[in-house]
């Protein structure tokens, strides 16, 4: 390992204990503040007041809600798989807390006369560690959905999983350019590498892809399809009540904080002071940078809330299409462009102008092609694209009611009639399967 990891893993146990407690308390407090902030800000956006009764400005509302949940009855569905049902919220909450371990929130400081970095720990693969913990966190959700034994919960869990794994890829791809520039996957080294210029400026497309996919990854509006109330009641946590529900709630908000902190670390220079302030030497020393870090995180949290207050929920197919057909190809293309630019600069030693020309022309062509793709397709295959948009499908839709020619040995094998074909001799449509009622099953 390189020298930059020397400060990590050498702290005495009591400093580790202080930092662990600090991270834990910070996450819980940020969650409570985020819940309060979300309710107040969304209320403001909707011309309401929001919670303002408990404590100054209603600040203690989140805490009181937590206590209230603890005093609520715990309902376990009769057909739930007990062990997994209890395990799921524990997995979700533990994973959410653990992901924060590698986030740096300050430089090396003197803590009770002991020099230590304001970061729990760091590895050469810290960012990968966060991804790994995130993929463990998905378990909590899928297991919650499965073990509840309820249709809505199972559907919500599956949706949530499909969504999180889809957006995890876009998220992972957006990291590549950062690693390429920083030459490291360690969070503290990435922060150091942004001393001069933030990666949000240098690698703007990566930043935008990350911000989009982080909203999808945390199941927040407008990507909150797993909890689409109109379709799935509460999604994977429909059957959860009392503190077990509170744990899922906590995990969701901690995940929001974690992805915001990761965005800050990877793209906004981490704990480093923003530009005009960074001219002052003292801004990046001591405990002060925690403030810059928290301000940046709070900015992302506000973005989450703002999005929720502004945008309606996407339809599921639009959402998946957006992930797989827009975010991922754009991220791949961006990686190719960035690496090509870098290899042209360093290895082929082209001048900046030549590299821009070499890169710019194909990119411009690609963008043009993408813009005129539909028009080109229409010219190449007249009537082709309209079949996809469906104007003349309405006739086609009614056409399949008419009896078509049915060949029972199409292709040399006995085959059932396809939709739109009628089995010779069949007079009535096939019987509709009727499920048994609960009463019948219980009897």
């Amino acid at each position: 390992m390189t020298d930059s990891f020397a400060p990590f893993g050498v702290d005495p146990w009591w400093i580790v204990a202080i930092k662990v407690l600090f991270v834990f308390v910070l996450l819980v407090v940020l969650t409570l503040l985020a819940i309060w902030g979300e309710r107040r800000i969304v209320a403001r956006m909707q011309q309401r007041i929001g919670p303002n009764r408990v404590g100054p400005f209603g600040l203690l509302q989140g805490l009181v809600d937590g206590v209230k949940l603890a005093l609520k009855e715990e309902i376990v569905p009769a057909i739930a798989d007990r062990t997994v049902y209890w395990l799921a919220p524990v997995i979700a909450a533990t994973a959410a807390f653990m992901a924060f371990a590698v986030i740096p929130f300050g430089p090396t400081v003197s803590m009770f006369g002991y020099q230590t970095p304001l970061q729990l720990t760091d590895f050469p693969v810290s960012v990968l560690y966060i991804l790994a913990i995130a993929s463990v966190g998905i378990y909590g959700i899928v297991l919650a959905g499965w073990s509840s034994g309820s249709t809505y919960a199972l559907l919500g869990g599956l949706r949530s999983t499909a969504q999180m794994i889809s957006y995890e890829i876009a998220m992972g791809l957006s990291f590549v350019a950062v690693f390429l520039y920083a030459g490291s996957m360690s969070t503290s080294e990435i922060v150091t590498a942004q001393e001069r210029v933030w990666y949000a400026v240098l690698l703007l497309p990566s930043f935008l892809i990350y911000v989009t996919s982080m909203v999808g990854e945390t199941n927040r509006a407008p990507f909150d399809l797993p909890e689409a109330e109109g379709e799935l009641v509460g999604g994977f946590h429909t059957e959860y009540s009392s503190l077990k529900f509170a744990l899922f709630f906590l995990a969701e908000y901690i995940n929001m904080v974690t992805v915001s902190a990761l965005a800050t670390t990877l793209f906004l220079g981490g704990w480093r002071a923003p530009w005009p302030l960074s001219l002052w030497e003292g801004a990046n020393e001591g405990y002060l940078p925690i403030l810059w870090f928290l301000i940046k995180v709070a900015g992302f949290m506000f973005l989450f809330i703002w999005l929720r207050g502004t945008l309606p929920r996407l339809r599921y197919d639009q959402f998946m299409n957006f992930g797989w057909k827009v975010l991922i190809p754009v991220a791949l293309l961006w990686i190719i462009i960035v690496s090509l630019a870098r290899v042209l600069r360093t290895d082929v030693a082209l001048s900046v102008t030549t590299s821009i020309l070499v890169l710019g022309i194909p990119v411009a062509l690609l963008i043009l092609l993408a813009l005129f793709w539909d028009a080109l397709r229409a010219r190449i295959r007249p009537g082709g694209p309209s079949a996809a948009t469906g104007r003349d499908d309405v006739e086609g839709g009614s056409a399949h009611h008419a009896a078509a020619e049915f060949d029972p040995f199409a292709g040399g094998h006995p085959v059932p009639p396809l939709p739109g074909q009628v089995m010779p001799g069949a007079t009535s449509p096939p019987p509709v399967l009727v499920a048994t009622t609960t009463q019948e099953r219980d009897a």
Partner: protein
Amino acid sequence: MTFLFWILATLSVIGGLGMLLSRKAVHSALWLALTMMCLAVLYVAQSAVFLGTVQVIVYTGAVMMLFLFVLMLIGVSAADSLRESIRGQRPVAVLVAVALGATLIAAVGNALDFSVGLQAANAEYGGNVQGLAALMFGRYLIAFEATAALLITAALGATILAHRERLFPRQDQRTRSVERFRSGVHPGQRPSPGVYARHNAVDVPALLPDGSAVPDSIPGPLRARGTVREIDATATEEVLDRLVGGAASDTGGER
């Protein structure tokens, strides 16, 4: 280090045994996840940090997810037949298992002789990740590309099994709404069921001003299941009966 090894080794063996002995397939999958996690921690403890995290991402993340999906798709939990459909499968399986075990023991035994950890190898290229990259995109490039091609072909082959021929043209929101209006059926919302604060309420039809029932007001699933209730005197009596007679058994657990 030895202490850590014994804890993790015990846990992974427990995980393996749990996977074999669990009745439900999802529980097996969970035990397997535990084993994978223990292996990942062992890798990290031996300075193979990249391999350790990747183990978690790829194995516990992707493969287990796929595993859970497949379990849910097929629903193995209850109706899995233990009868073998391929003749002579068992002896061959035993033979292959023994051969695999022997190979593994031989390979591990062989490796134990010169197992010294990764410290030196990591230092050579200035880091675990850098060292891996240098080997993977240098000396073992051909093997890397070939393995990648093989893996992707296998994965793509698996997706082909799941592809479905499109029998109807794709229907989007627009086509559906056009079709709904053309079909002549009332295109708007159906009337909501009659809510009379008894039983489930949604299984009772709404009433028209003239007192006749609107069958359409009851949700389709309930009609399909045949749990629709009629509004008449007997229903009222039945409800009364439930309230008086069933009260003792329904709320008996109250403390």
